[in-house]
């Protein structure tokens, strides 16, 4: 058990570290200008000049993937932070205070949940206009209801545990009980959800880009690199492989780190 925990933590941290390093490096150096068009060398196969090849406009895939890491990573991180923070607050309130607070929150929550997330984000983007900020906002709103549901469910079961009642007998206020006893015990499932959200956000951003309301070209994201590579799947497979691998590796890292974090949050992991 402990060995698995460490493997998770080490490998996860290594992969996420690699992702951060690539992003950092992208600020100071990329092999080429990520948006410079070179129509003399379109769809060049990976080689010495272009390590990961070039796309249909002759842009260097490696440089674009490095810049894409920054944009995709920032969007995903923003979405996860916003939806988890808000979701925690709303879910805690609904689960802990119950009664009408819970009723009102859950009716609204279920109303939002009734729309497909991507449709909702699409509509919001249409209203807000394209920008990174509105992209993060739109996706956060789309994912918020599931976070609220998970937090609330977990709070509902913790609320019934006797140590919560013990806190009342000790004379603690409700807010103190909520923050000191309920919140920490409600975190583990949220951590797992948050790591999944990270992946969903990257993919959802690509879907929105594909529909023309995501990050506008020529700025690269892993998502829009992937969708623009689709027509060239047979002639230039490296165009899909590069961003695909980037997504896969970073998701693996984030998920492993999430698992490790969950284990670490579990008091039983201490010896």
């Amino acid at each position, binding site marked *: 058990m402990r060995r698995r925990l460490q493997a998770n933590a080490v490998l996860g941290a290594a992969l996420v570290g690699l992702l951060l390093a690539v992003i950092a490096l992208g600020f100071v150096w990329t092999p080429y200008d990520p948006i410079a068009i070179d129509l003399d060398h379109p769809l060049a196969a990976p080689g010495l000049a272009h390590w990961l090849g070039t796309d249909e406009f002759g842009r260097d895939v490696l440089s674009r993937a490095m810049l894409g890491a920054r944009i995709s990573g920032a969007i995903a991180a923003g979405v996860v932070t916003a939806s988890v923070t808000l979701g925690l607050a709303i879910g805690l309130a609904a689960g802990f205070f119950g009664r009408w607070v819970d009723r009102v929150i859950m009716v609204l929550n279920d109303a939002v949940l009734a729309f497909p997330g991507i449709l909702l984000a699409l509509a919001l983007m249409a209203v807000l206009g394209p920008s990174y900020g509105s992209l993060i906002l739109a996706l956060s709103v789309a994912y918020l209801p599931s976070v609220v549901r998970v937090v609330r469910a977990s709070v509902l079961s913790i609320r019934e*545990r*006797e*140590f919560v*009642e*013990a*806190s*009342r*007998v*000790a*004379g*603690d206020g409700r807010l103190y009980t909520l923050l000191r*006893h309920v919140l*920490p*015990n409600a975190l583990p499932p949220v951590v797992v959800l948050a790591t999944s959200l990270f992946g969903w956000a990257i993919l959802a951003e690509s879907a929105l880009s594909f529909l023309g309301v995501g990050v506008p070209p020529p700025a690269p994201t892993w998502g829009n690199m992937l969708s623009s590579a689709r027509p060239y799947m047979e002639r230039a497979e490296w165009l899909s492989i590069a961003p695909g691998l980037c997504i896969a590796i970073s998701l693996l890292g984030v998920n492993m780190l999430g698992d490790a974090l969950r284990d670490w949050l579990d*008091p*039983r992991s*201490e010896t």
Partner: protein
Amino acid sequence: MTAPLLRVRNLRIEASNAPERPPLLADLSFDVAPGEFVAIVGESGSGKTMAARSIPGLLPLGVRRAGGSIFLDDRELTGLAPEALRAVRGREVGMVFQEPMVSLNPALTIGRQLAEGLKLHERLRDSEIRARCLEMLRRVQIADPERCLSAYPHEFSGGMRQRIMLASVLLLKPRLLIADEPTTALDTLSQREVMELMVELAAQAGTAVLLITHDLGLVARYARRVVVLEKGLTVEIGAAREVLVAPHHPYTQRLVASLPRRPAARAPRPSGRPLLEVRQAAIDYPGKTGLVGRAPPKRVVNGVSLTVGTGEIVAVVGGSGSGKTTIGRAVLGLKSLAEGAVVFDGVELAGMDRRQLRQFRRQAQLVFQDPYSSLDPRMRIGDTVGAPLRHNPDLTPAARRERVRQALEDVSLGGFEDRLPHEMSGGQRQRVAIARAVVSRPRLVVADEPVSALDMTIQRQVLELFQRLQAQYGFACLFITHDLGVVEEIADRLYVLAAGSVVEEGATEAVFDSPRHAYTQALLAAAPSRMAAAVSVA
């Protein structure tokens, strides 16, 4: 002497991934004759459940039989192929488990679940299966067997479910019935019903019974022979009565000595102004919310009055659903009253202002039943115990730490401040809960079944600790329990609660020696720990 039905020889069970550790069960040998009632007694970790499960080959993952043999008649069960073993299960060896709440499938009707075994093991027409199921349900005294067949498990109480479980096992007329703590989850009265039924039906069908239990009371009342296990080792084996009356092994002696019993003399309590008064209390639970509106509230406590004097131990006794836990919560202001009043030290709880309420919280504490759920798994023991002191402005942090240290010393857990709950045993955790309750030097402690989740010997330790602290600090105590043995040992007075009302009250000796109400009489007759204590004294 007839040939034994079941012969277990030199059975050894160990954890498959750690054979170097001491085995979970070592060198267990015993016989069960046809129709005989044998009990295996032990505390948690004694290996008693493993012994039971190994017979039909149902050991959990990660645990394996490392040696020994199990014969049913002359067939060696351990060597059987999975196919052949499946034919033995149910057909020849039936098993009843501890948790009636989870051992029936909630998604299937009772009828389907009863018929399952018959369909597997016998060729019968549907009408015949139905007839046999109805007959069996009648024999386990289910009121309306026809309706029961098409009902789902959640429609029945724990005791009824356990009877249905029993019916489904006995339908196949097994020759050996293994019952693993079959009544531990039930209250005293249903426990007695289920046990009596089991004994009666087994006797009628000539079924041998192997009872796995921690409860010496059940052994005293029902078993002919007993095997006593401690940490996987057989410490004593013999006729039940002899083992209980004259135990040879020190462990068995300790087990028998840990049974609660009436003290020779009770110190008289000062009778002053009552510290706590409950006047004509009625408590409702809100009705279930349906599609439209809410069902009317359900009254669980009705017109209950009780008093607790300063320094007095008063027991509230009742079966599950009697409302005793609810009263304990109401006394602490955790549950509001629909009618009536709770008065603490002359002040009505409902009328207290913030300052008074804060003071009340320091003076009234609670010990819970389940030591696994009452401690925050993320909080260190020192913080948990110190929690009630957080609202005492007169204490400096150093004084607070000193109080916590003192409280932990009091419960013999000195130096445990930095531990986490999961690093401790159930008994240790319950002592932590008691330390938390006494750290603020309360005048009233409500103890809700504080020992019923604990093993016998641990129960003894905790009870003694509780009495010692009570004598030392002189707090009054409202002791909520279903265990009459414990009441007889520690309570000065008691209230008997049935269906939300007090049916009898009085001094402990008076009520125990001449109970007036029929319900009290039934409770006393069903109390297993008193039974065993009586046997072992005789």
